């Protein structure tokens, strides 16, 4: 069996916009194996603080593995301090990836809030090869939270942006953009990732309009290997671990409380 824990080298680590950073590390085996929606579990400190590893969606896997992150607490701040050449202790690839759209689908709408955009780029890298109409609806707090969506546009994705303060795109939540897109229950597939209230809204919209899709969930994680049963969330099929059974679930499966 392959090893899932490895020490890789940081290739680059840079701020992409006021809020978000991108870190690339050199992991050829990982590039080969990883699928959209999977994540890596990174030990940000050599010591015990912060104690847990930190999970990050794979943002892209081309020459290097890329993650896209927001420095906000001790772990992500330590990550932001990593420099080219530094070793990075990584578990991965982990978790159940997104399922690809069923045969009848022609249009894929990705709906992401904040850092939830991370798994969407690698997804569009894969989907663009299959000639779908690709749409990204992106919601962020403000201008500083909106990364210029060049990579998505290069992938042929049509991008719609909403910000809480209207500083970029339209003002409001992602749901204000739903009427910009022609959703069609027979040929549209949704992927969504972001804050739970947003995913809950998307779920309700999808269920009401009978649109199929997938969500990528987040939960605090310890092992990220399905061992501790610590990252369980409620689903229609009972408690499921985000790290092992997820992060990707069918859009109707997860029960969102908050």
């Amino acid at each position: 069996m392959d090893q899932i824990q490895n020490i890789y080298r940081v290739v680059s680590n840079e701020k992409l916009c006021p809020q978000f950073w991108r870190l690339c590390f050199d992991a050829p085996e990982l590039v080969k194996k990883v699928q959209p929606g999977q994540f890596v579990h990174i030990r940000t400190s050599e010591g015990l603080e912060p104690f847990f590893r930190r999970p990050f969606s794979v943002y892209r896997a081309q020459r290097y593995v890329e993650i896209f992150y927001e420095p906000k607490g001790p772990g992500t701040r330590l990550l932001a301090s990593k420099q080219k050449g530094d070793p990075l202790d990584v578990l991965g690839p982990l978790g159940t990836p997104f399922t690809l759209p069923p045969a009848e689908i022609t249009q894929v709408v990705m709906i992401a809030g904040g850092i939830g955009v991370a798994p969407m780029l690698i997804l569009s890298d894969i989907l663009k090869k299959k000639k779908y109409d690709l749409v990204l609806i992106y919601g962020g707090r403000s201008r500083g939270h909106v990364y210029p969506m060049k990579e998505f546009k290069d992938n042929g994705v049509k991008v719609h942006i909403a910000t809480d303060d209207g500083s970029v795109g339209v003002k409001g939540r992602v749901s204000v953009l739903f009427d910009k897109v022609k959703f069609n229950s027979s040929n549209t597939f949704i992927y969504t990732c972001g804050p739970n209230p947003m995913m809950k809204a998307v779920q309700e919209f999808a269920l009401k309009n009978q649109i199929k899709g997938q969500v990528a969930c987040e939960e605090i994680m310890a092992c990220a290997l399905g061992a501790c049963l610590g990252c369980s969330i409620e689903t229609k099929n009972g408690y499921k671990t985000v790290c092992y059974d997820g992060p990707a679930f069918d859009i109707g499966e997860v029960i969102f409380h908050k």
Partner: protein
Amino acid sequence: MNLSVKISSVTFKNPVTVASGTFGHAEKYHNLEEVKKLGAIVPKTVTLYPQVGNPPVRIWETPCGMINAIGIENPGIDAFIQTKLPNFKKIGVPLIVSILGHTPEQFVEIVEKLNTQEDVAALELNLSCPNLKHKTLVAQDPQATQELVRKVKAVSKFPVIAKLSPNVTDISEIAMAAEAGGADAVSLINTLSAMAIDTKTRKSRIGNFTGGLSGPAIRPVAVAMVHKVYSSVKIPIIGMGGIANANDALEFIIAGATMVATGTINFVNPRASLEVLEGIVSYMKEQKITDIHQLIGSLQK
């Protein structure tokens, strides 16, 4: 160099194992070649009937540790025997099965089901279960502990290890009760009762309201308890609580543990148990110790 240790009549090729609930059933990721090197493995506690576990959030990170309230999510003993046990046996490492009954009768029933199996090295009784006579846990009451161990010993064809809780006034009293009940070993410590609060919402961080603290934070408490128990009983001790590396494990062995288990640290460093094993070997070489038994309980006053 002799690393092998015994509990009752069972020999383990080395003293390093993993703490119940921290190793998991997730075969997908195991590096089998590595796991095979361990002295024993201990899967998550199994109950008589399936348990779905506690509502989320189930874990919380704390300074150098974590709180958990998983709620012994497990498929129940029948499914465990049918679907999990064969995989664990395949690994070829002695298996210590951790069990919990909500009544003494449930314990006995679980043991009878396991008695039909081969290739189980020992049973570990998770005594953090309700004590029906008092409002405490069994592991908090010497009499209840002694009686429960005795009942299990009466039916078990495997050696029996009593797993003790640190949430007691005097852990040696409980260990002595387990010994008097016929336990072949004790393992300690389980988690310390703990809580963390979200000051924004003024709710517990934990779905189950309270949970148990584990990880390096609690190591000094665990080492003290292992030493206290070592001074009070003759049966072997499996020591755990915050072990993060070989030096930590050696503290437990020197304090009196015959075996040691890595727990929470497995989540941070999946190779921790192997590193502990490797480090014990290097230490013994350096210190010119040829038999692990020279180390066990060798703490000088």
